[in-house]
């Protein structure tokens, strides 16, 4: 009796152990079916968005510098200062420009005097020519009445024509002297212009973003001394992957998140899509303006831009994680009689969370969203919670 009770306990113990063993193998061992989580195909509205990152930049940036090499004499403004259009910003050392202007001025005065002298010569030559002409006419009359020799009359006629030629030369000389005045005055004006160009003035109402040269520094032609931007025309120059940029158009609303304020998104608007994309990084450049512009912006700050694209209403959707690719074909995994089966579908519009199913699935059917292992066709699966919520 005692023995049979013991063997009963033993048998029960052995059975319990075997049951636990089988259970363990079936649920945790290599023979266990793959745990999956499923979801049903539902109708929903999708509003996709495109994401890009960029920097806050000025639509137009102005760099103000001299047109020829020179030494910076004075810089009147500093970074951050507001300036008006036409305001004097900096001056380049004129070096000998004043002396050159004085020289040019004297040259002009000298040219005027030379002109006066030339005019006087014309008057003298004119007088000589008229006298010579009168003498010649007189000798011609006397010759005709045979009072003088023919040689005398010819000599007087020659004198008259020589005096006329001298008059023409003096006139040309005078007109040349007048032109010389024009040249000398133009040179003076040119030097004056050059002196004006050494004063760097602001082309816009804006703000100084950089002061790149200090008094005493030598700058080459075209090098910036100051950089300006128009603070009212700051925007985000965002880079969006070409593969995702489809559908982005000017006028679409966008959210801008500045790196300095990661929690808050500022409203914006797509203003311009650059015609020229970046061929190296394969990104399209999309300029998004603030709408309205915040009080203070820092050019060069990193910003994230999310552009809202036009959505679709009431379409079949599944969670994004359900969409899989098997040998280049898009589809979803479904549970059929406890086994995973791949079902090709045609995906449509995608948002972060959901994807539109254009064809291949009916509403209400269930698809595998998560799986504990990579699925293969025909693998045994079982629905279970994969992660504790």
């Amino acid at each position, binding site marked *: 009796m005692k*023995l049979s009770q*013991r*063997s009963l306990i*033993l048998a029960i113990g052995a059975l319990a*152990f*075997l049951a*636990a*063993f089988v259970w*363990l*193998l079936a649920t*945790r*061992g*290599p*023979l266990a079916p793959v745990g999956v*989580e499923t979801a049903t195909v539902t109708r929903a509205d999708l509003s996709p968005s495109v*994401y*890009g*990152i960029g920097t806050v930049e000025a639509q137009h940036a102005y760099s103000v510098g001299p047109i020829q090499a020179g030494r910076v004499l004075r810089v009147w403004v500093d970074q951050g200062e507001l300036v008006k259009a036409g305001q004097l910003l900096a001056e380049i050392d004129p070096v000998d420009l004043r002396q050159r202007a004085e020289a040019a001025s004297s040259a002009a005065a000298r040219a005027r005097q030379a002109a006066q002298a030339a005019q006087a010569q014309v008057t003298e030559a004119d007088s000589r020519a008229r006298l010579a002409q009168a003498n010649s006419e007189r000798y011609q009359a006397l010759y005709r009445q045979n009072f003088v020799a023919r040689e005398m009359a010819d000599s007087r006629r020659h004198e008259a024509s020589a005096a006329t030629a001298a008059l023409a030369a003096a006139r040309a000389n005078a007109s040349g002297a007048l032109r010389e005045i024009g040249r000398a005055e133009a040179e003076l004006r040119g030097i004056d212009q050059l002196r004006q160009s050494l004063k760097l003035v602001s082309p816009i109402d804006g703000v100084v973003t950089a002061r790149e040269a200090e008094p005493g520094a*030598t700058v*080459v032609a075209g*090098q*910036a001394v100051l950089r300006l931007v128009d603070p009212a025309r700051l925007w985000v120059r965002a880079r*969006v*992957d070409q*593969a*995702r940029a489809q559908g982005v158009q000017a006028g679409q609303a966008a959210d801008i998140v500045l790196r300095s304020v*990661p929690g808050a998104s500022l409203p914006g608007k797509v203003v311009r899509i650059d015609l020229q994309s970046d061929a*190296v*990084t394969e990104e399209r450049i999309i300029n998004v303006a603030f709408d309205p512009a915040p009080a203070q912006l820092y050019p060069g700050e990193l910003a*994230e831009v999310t552009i809202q694209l036009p959505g679709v209403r009431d379409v079949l959707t599944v*969670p*994004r*994680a359900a*969409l*899989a690719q098997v*040998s*280049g074909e898009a589809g979803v995994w479904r549970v059929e009689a406890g086994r995973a089966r791949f079902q090709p579908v045609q995906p449509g519009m*995608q*948002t*972060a*969370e959901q994807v539109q199913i254009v064809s291949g699935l009916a509403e209400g059917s269930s698809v595998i*969203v*998560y*799986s*504990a*292992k*990579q*699925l293969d066709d025909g693998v045994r699966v079982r629905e279970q919670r*994969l*992660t504790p919520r």
Partner: protein
Amino acid sequence: MINLARRDIAHHLKSYLLTGLGLGLLIGVTLTMAGVYRGMVDDAKVLLHAVDADVWVVQQNTLGPFAEPSSVPDDLYRALLGLEGVAQTGNVAYLTMQVSHQGKSQRVMVAGFEPGKPGGPAFLVAGRPIARAHYEAVADAKTGFQVGDVVRIRRNDYTVVGLTRRMVSSGGDPMLFIPLKDAQEAQFLKDNDAIIEGRKRLAANPALNRPGQPGVLEAVQAIQASSHKVNAVLLRLQPGFDARALADTIARWQRYTAYTSDDMEEILVAKLIATAAKQISLFLIILAVVSAAIVAFIIYTMTLGKIKEIAVLKLIGTQNRTIAAMIMQEALGLGVIGFFVGKFAATLWAPAFPKYVLLETGDAARAFVLTLVVCALASLLAIRAALKIDPAEAIGG
């Protein structure tokens, strides 16, 4: 003929079961060690299966992105996409680094991939795939991250949007998938101090910062701060094209090294984890020998402990065959109990290991046969000792 073994076991049931349990735990350890080795190999296979690339294109004469550093231009894919038979290409970048989460540092292998192209995680257990072009991550569950966690890589914060499983590097570091451009930046980006020092160093170089040539310095600095390199380009082929032939074409004409997925598996399994695998297999052999020896000793001493009883049996005229059968049956019984307890224990504790432990059914079957053989051999030793016992010992001693 009566079954002596059953009666003997019933008589010493508790000690018999405890011996079986102890043996079982030993066998469990051996099975687990085999599982550790299988797990290492399987990790590599799972990674390759998830990536699902037919050809890996890497820097010339290097062993791919995992075993050796490799760097190829990120626009190489354009040339490769033009080859006949290539259906899809994907740039990938891998780097092992520390990422910080809530002030704690976690070692991961960051994998940069282009969403929708080869190289990403193959399945998820929670969350969603990466949808934005920047600053989102899918983490292996082994990282301990949850969906919604924010982790910091270099200077940017990444939101964990999805979790996957079984994606680990050959070193066992869990993987963190991020968009390729972010990974390229993370791979290349130095800390801010280093960048500023580098700028100063460049500015001090008269060849780059010549007076009268503004702009040269900025251009050089801009070149230094951008990276257009990836670690490998993955190719998927159109059906019917031979990966081996394409890999040879790429190696010959594009001057890059190309591996088929079989080559890659060979590199991952035979080269990368070779030393670790040898280490484990040697340990496994020693463990198996030690286990066998312990089993043999236990059975032997168990038999020797019954010398008096056996002598009595002999005295009352029990046949040698019956005694031998008893010892053999008891030994085999211990082996069976030990195996099942060991398998049970190994299956129970395998998921708790930090690296994946794969308990293969084939290994279990081999272990079962081996256990029974060892038990039988050990019992032969004990039987020989038992048969030599003088029946007179039952009365004397």
